[in-house]
């Protein structure tokens, strides 16, 4: 009976919902494309959503679980796209332009990006937070600058990759999303995932507990870069020509917006946000003529509005989740509370229930006792129990 309960808990539907939805999408797409209901632009939009999902999920692994900000994700994608598509072009006369060549190209793109992930991961071991962020940003710019100047990659004109068959590419992309998601989710829910989050929460404490910080940091960087590389090859085959301008710092930020919008540390959130943002971007790039004429807008006004909207969304979400000013509002609108109301459970007990797992009630009780006449004042600097991460 106990084992049954254990399995029930382990295989809760909520852990697998993203897989079910994705498989559902793949089946629906298979039916639609077999009946010829998908237009050309639908294929390209769906493929774009697919590789954006891979990017968002892999960046979320670094930002949400390792707790380090990477601003060079587009750089890894760039490495993958150039090397993978270059190898595809080399192999094409030998193995043909079939799915086998695509898979070899994807693997080689992924591996080369992973090598760069390792290279950038090594300084990452000595750097933290802000320093690491600037290091990854620098990496992205270096990669672009080098690819721009290498003649056999097409130089500033870009590398001509040739379009891949739309239908096959879409399904390869969707299956890759599934595989990447499975790898990342399983990593997070394993012993290794707990070690990674331990490093995020307190590196020194994690090291003291015997977590191999070097190994896990490198693992996360390499894995995330590998996924970005895969996505780069898919991108290259979807657009037909790779230009280094498209992998600028701005694209890294766009991926970051997906992660933040979906919720840092939430894979399902990343998937949803990647879908929404990509769909909105595609829509704004080619708005239906009727809408454009009705609003009497210039060609790029919508793109500018998109930039502003991203910025505002980014700021508002961070403010809402972090600013003490919004703590009251956050409490009121929390989903857990709404659910509690729905289940007629006393909302007051939720946090207590959650706290039960670690059974360090003595500390909590002590805090309650100590906190009785120490009210937190407005503008108080830091919680004394929680040292700032930046403070060294």
């Amino acid at each position, binding site marked *: 009976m106990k084992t049954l309960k254990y399995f029930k808990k382990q295989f809760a539907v909520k852990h697998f919902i993203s897989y079910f939805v994705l498989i559902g999408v793949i089946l629906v797409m298979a039916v639609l494309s077999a009946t010829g209901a998908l237009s050309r632009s639908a294929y390209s939009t769906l493929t774009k959503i697919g590789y954006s999902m891979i990017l968002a999920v892999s960046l979320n692994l670094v*930002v949400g679980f390792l707790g380090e900000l990477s601003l060079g994700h587009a750089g890894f994608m760039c490495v993958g796209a150039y090397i993978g598509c270059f190898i595809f072009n080399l192999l094409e006369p030998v193995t043909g332009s079939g799915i086998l060549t695509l898979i070899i190209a994807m693997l080689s793109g992924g591996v080369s990006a992973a090598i760069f992930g390792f290279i950038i991961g090594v300084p990452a071991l000595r750097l933290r937070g*802000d320093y690491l*962020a600037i290091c990854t940003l620098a990496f992205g710019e270096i990669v672009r600058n080098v690819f721009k100047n290498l003649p056999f990659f097409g130089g500033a004109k870009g590398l001509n990759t040739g379009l891949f068959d739309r239908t096959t590419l879409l399904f390869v992309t969707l299956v890759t999303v599934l595989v990447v998601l499975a790898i990342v989710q399983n990593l997070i829910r394993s012993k290794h995932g707990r070690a990674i989050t331990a490093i995020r929460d307190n590196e020194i404490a994690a090291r003291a507990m015997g977590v191999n910080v070097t190994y896990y940091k490198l693992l996360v960087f390499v894995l995330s870069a590998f996924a970005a590389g895969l996505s780069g090859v898919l991108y290259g085959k979807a657009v037909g020509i790779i230009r280094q301008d498209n992998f600028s*710092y701005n694209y890294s930020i766009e991926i970051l917006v997906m992660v933040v919008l979906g919720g840092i540390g939430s894979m399902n959130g990343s998937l949803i946000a990647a879908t929404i943002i990509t769909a909105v971007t595609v829509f704004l790039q080619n708005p239906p003529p009727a809408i454009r004429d009705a609003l009497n807008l210039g060609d790029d006004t919508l793109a500018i*509005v998109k930039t*502003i909207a991203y910025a505002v969304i980014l700021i508002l979400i961070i*403010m809402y989740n972090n600013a003490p000013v919004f703590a009251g509002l956050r409490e009121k609108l929390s989903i857990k509370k709404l659910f509690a109301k729905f289940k007629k459970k006393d909302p007051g007990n939720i946090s207590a229930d959650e706290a039960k797992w670690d059974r360090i009630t003595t500390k909590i009780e002590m805090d309650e006792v100590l906190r009785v006449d120490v009210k937190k004042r407005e503008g108080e*600097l830091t919680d004394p129990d929680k040292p700032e*991460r930046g403070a060294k």
Partner: protein
Amino acid sequence: MVTVIDGLSLGAIYALIALGYTMVYGIAKMLNFAHGDIIMVGAFAIFVTFSTLGHPLIAILVAVVICTVLGVTIERLAYRPLRTASPLAVLITAIGVSYLLQGIAQLIFGAGNNPVNFLASLGVVSFSLFGSQINVSWSSILTVGLGAILMVGLTLFVKYTRTGRAMRAVSEDRGAATLQGIDANKIIMITFAIGSFLAAFASLFYLSKTPVNPTFGSMPGIKAFTAAVIGGIGSIPGAMLGGILLGMIETICLSIPAISSYTTAIEFSVLIIILMIRPIGLLGKKRRVKV
């Protein structure tokens, strides 16, 4: 020789911007990613005032005022509510502010280039040194000269005034400084004001090198940030050293045809190499990490 003076002038621009980054980092412990875009706003302010009023001094004055007010406003609205949040949250907000400023500028002025060249119209100075004729533009000399004056002024300000001492105290230990009666929020606001004030001058000097557009500030911003990190972020002399070093590297690389197209890669590689050897930058202070 010309390369050296050009390098110094570019270095002075980077140093002025880097000072803004480094002071804010030292005192508020955050990266102000929007700093580069404050420069862009300053450049647009100069462009608009100069093309309507035609007087360079008024244009500079307007830019200085606008930048300072903008810096303080951003701090008040976007960063102060997040004073207790994690560094990652603040960093992402700063990126958001940077995007917002760029988007608004693009909405108002469009994506095109708007040249402003009253500094370039000052002409060049010619003199002979060791028997060879040397032409140096007035704008380079002005940049180096004014940049040096501003930097010396800032150093004196931080070292000898009451506010400067309070700034150093907040940077050392915000909690202890507050206990001594220093209003940390006010000091952080002053820091943003000074950083943006310097940014206004940086935008003036950078205008002599490139026309203004909505992404005017992002490249010098990233470069200056790199300079601040190379010098050791949080350290004022470090920012000056890093800025001048980076300006020299950039100018020297650009003057050698064989490697000129790899300039960006070389600059950023220098950053990564320095960080690998000395993770706190050249003049950074090491701090013990405690659990």
